[in-house]
């Protein structure tokens, strides 16, 4: 599911220009041609079809220029190839350029300062196991609901939870609260009244339809995240 892969990204990187370019020319070309909607064809080594496609660059800042090396920061739509962006910029500048370093600094609202190294994680786990100290580990582990904060939500009655946990479709009569502006075919998060994430699904109705209709499939369950048995099985009688 493109819940996390479809999010906007931010990167910091270094491009190497094949000849020095005056900084104002560099900035002007970027503003003219490489901010807003751009078109790019994925490179040879890519998982997607090599068809030219449109992507959006939200910002493209030059942080520092040192001869032919340029430190940049860019914010872009999911699926943007930064390597290709730099290559195309080099072409537009008529000198050629390639990306020499790249670091992703943001995925949606997840930022670098929420990250932990493997060593930190392992140590935090040991503190808990050996010393019963939960503090570090609780700073590292985010509840799964955090990963789907940006997904529109549908809240359901306790009587509907177990069925959804087993992959059954969600019907309108199981729904209590719907986020506005859900369209058909959108990824939605199915939540309990206590705000636990049960599953991710694809909406088959709009928010208004979910509110008004009594029959039909409201959401097709796609990925169940809650363990079975936490909520009881509800007999229809």
């Amino acid at each position, binding site marked *: 599911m493109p819940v996390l892969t479809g999010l906007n990204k931010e990167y910091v990187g270094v491009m190497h220009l094949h000849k020095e370019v005056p900084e104002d020319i560099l900035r002007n070309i970027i503003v003219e041609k490489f901010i807003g909607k751009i078109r790019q064809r994925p490179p040879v080594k890519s998982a997607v079809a090599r068809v030219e496609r449109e992507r959006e660059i939200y910002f493209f800042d030059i942080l520092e220029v040192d001869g032919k090396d340029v430190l940049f920061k860019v914010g872009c739509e999911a699926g943007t190839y930064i390597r290709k962006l730099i290559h195309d910029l080099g072409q537009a500048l008529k000198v050629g350029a390639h990306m020499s370093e790249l670091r992703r600094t943001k995925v949606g609202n997840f930022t670098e300062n929420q990250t932990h190294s493997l060593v930190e*994680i392992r140590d935090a786990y040991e503190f808990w196991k050996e010393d019963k100290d939960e503090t570090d580990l609780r700073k590292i582990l985010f509840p799964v609901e955090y990963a789907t904060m940006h997904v529109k939500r549908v809240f359901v009655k306790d009587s509907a939870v177990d069925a959804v946990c087993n992959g059954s479709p969600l019907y309108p009569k199981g729904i209590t609260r719907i986020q506005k502006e859900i369209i058909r075919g959108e990824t939605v998060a199915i939540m309990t009244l206590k705000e636990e994430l049960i599953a991710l699904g694809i909406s088959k109705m709009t928010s208004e339809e979910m509110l008004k209709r009594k029959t039909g499939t409201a959401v097709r369950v796609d990925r169940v995240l809650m363990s079975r048995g936490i909520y009881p099985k509800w007999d229809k009688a």
Partner: protein
Amino acid sequence: MWLIKSEEEINPEYGKSPNDRTLEELINSAVIITDKHAGPTSHTITAWLRDIFNVKLAGHSGTLVTI
């Protein structure tokens, strides 16, 4: 922001708010954001984390986000 279809009472008998999870419960359903050093693949890191925490399932969603 919300369309209300029905009013329901919260039953304390089953389920709990995510904030009230025990650490064991959290481990089984958590998201970790790791800063992966160059070298090992995301797949390797995911396997390491699965082993450290001794859970059955772990997945990842590209660099910078591991589930």
